């Protein structure tokens, strides 16, 4: 039997693959984001390479590795003092934790995650290694455990991972409140990322007395955030060029650096579930 060969011309191949590209583009994000997460989950160990660069990568010289006996004895005493202080702090922490457990919850629940992917390129996003299986879902607020401030919002999740859009992303908006210590100021507004390292709050009436240094909080949202949590502070207040009756406020979020190591996702507990 004669075997038929189907030979595609170069032009045909080009058009076929280009059309495939358009089909992929038109696929809904709910379908395509699984591919991203599959890739990230498969190559997670490789993606993590370079996560931690030591501040001082240079190895100490032989002279720096050796100390005198007198210095050794001093360091040894300091070490024991520090250790004793650590034990005391640990006792205090345990006491505080017991007290906290008996009080109404401040946050509904916190899921601590490691940051896997970078916040690089056009979009300010990071990948974290906790997903829907841990109760994380899109819309959840994400905190920096080191700085105790909101740094982003979960955009989409897979079972084991989630993509977090940082507050500095130009497409991320978040309801906020601007407050000042010792004053009755409490202004509700929306903050939008500026695409660099800050945020902009437009559409605030000029009759509001807002000054640089005022604190900016993420506003409570039912089911997502029980209490206001700090985001940063007001860096600059300018009249809006387009609308002279409005302020344009520049917000400086808490500096988390370009590579946050860990993130804490605020996960609201649903009645009847118990998180570990």
């Amino acid at each position: 039997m004669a075997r038929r060969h189907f030979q595609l011309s170069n032009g045909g191949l080009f058009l076929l693959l280009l059309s495939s590209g358009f089909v992929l583009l038109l696929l809904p994000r709910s379908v395509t984001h699984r591919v991203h997460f599959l890739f990230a989950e498969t190559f997670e160990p490789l993606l993590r390479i370079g996560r931690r660069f030591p501040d001082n990568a240079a190895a100490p010289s032989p002279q720096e590795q050796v100390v005198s006996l007198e210095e050794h004895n001093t360091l040894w005493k300091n070490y024991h003092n520090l250790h004793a202080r650590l034990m005391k702090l640990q006792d205090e922490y345990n006491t505080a934790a017991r007290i906290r457990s008996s009080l109404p919850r401040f946050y509904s629940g916190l899921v601590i995650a490691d940051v896997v992917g970078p916040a690089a390129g056009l979009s300010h996003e990071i990948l974290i290694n906790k997903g829907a299986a841990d109760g994380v879902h899109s819309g959840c607020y994400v905190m920096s455990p080191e700085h105790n401030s909101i740094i982003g919002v979960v955009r989409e999740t897979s079972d084991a991972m989630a993509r977090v859009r940082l507050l500095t992303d130009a497409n991320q908006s978040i309801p906020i409140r601007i407050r000042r210590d010792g004053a009755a100021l409490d202004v509700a507004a929306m903050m939008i990322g500026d695409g660099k390292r800050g945020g902009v709050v437009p559409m605030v009436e000029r009759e509001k007395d807002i000054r640089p240094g005022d604190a900016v909080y993420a506003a409570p949202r039912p089911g997502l955030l029980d209490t206001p949590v700090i985001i940063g502070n007001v860096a600059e207040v300018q009249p809006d060029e387009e609308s002279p009756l409005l302020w344009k406020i520049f917000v400086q979020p808490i500096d988390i650096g370009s590579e946050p190591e860990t993130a804490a996702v605020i996960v609201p507990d649903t009645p009847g579930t118990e998180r570990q």
Partner: protein
Amino acid sequence: MRWVLFAILVLLGAVLEAGNLLNAVALGQWHIRPSVLIVLLVFFAVHCRTHEAIITSFVIGLAMDISGSQIGPHTISYCLVGGLLNQLGEYFVLRRGASPAALIFPAYVIAAVIAYWLGALKTGERQDYAYRIFVLTGLYSAFIGSFFWRFLGRINQPASSQSLQTSPPQRGYLR
């Protein structure tokens, strides 16, 4: 064409694009990182036969999309830019010793702008500083690509020598 080697290179490039290693060389407040996959795209588009260049451009674009946050924009833009580079390949002064940076920079900027427009068309999301970031990333990629180019030429010797034997009529798919 060594397809296994190509697949390994693309996978490595995608992992580098999505991973943290390139953060070690990121620059400035926009955290500009070089693009590894654009160097691969230009290299294979210039050095391969036409049908190979089309397939490699598609695959590299897809890898770029998978390592990013949307599927489709880079697949299309890399397909277009790779095809264009391959068509114009015989006119490039690259083989006469000119720097590949002169090719990588415009290729990156054109591909990134097309992908950005397609992405914005789909999601409606825009970035204020996108074009500045594209130019800076293109410059950085071109700089890094000049060094990477020789390495690619060495490990992919058959592909690069094959292209020199390819006669111009075999290369054009729109003719």
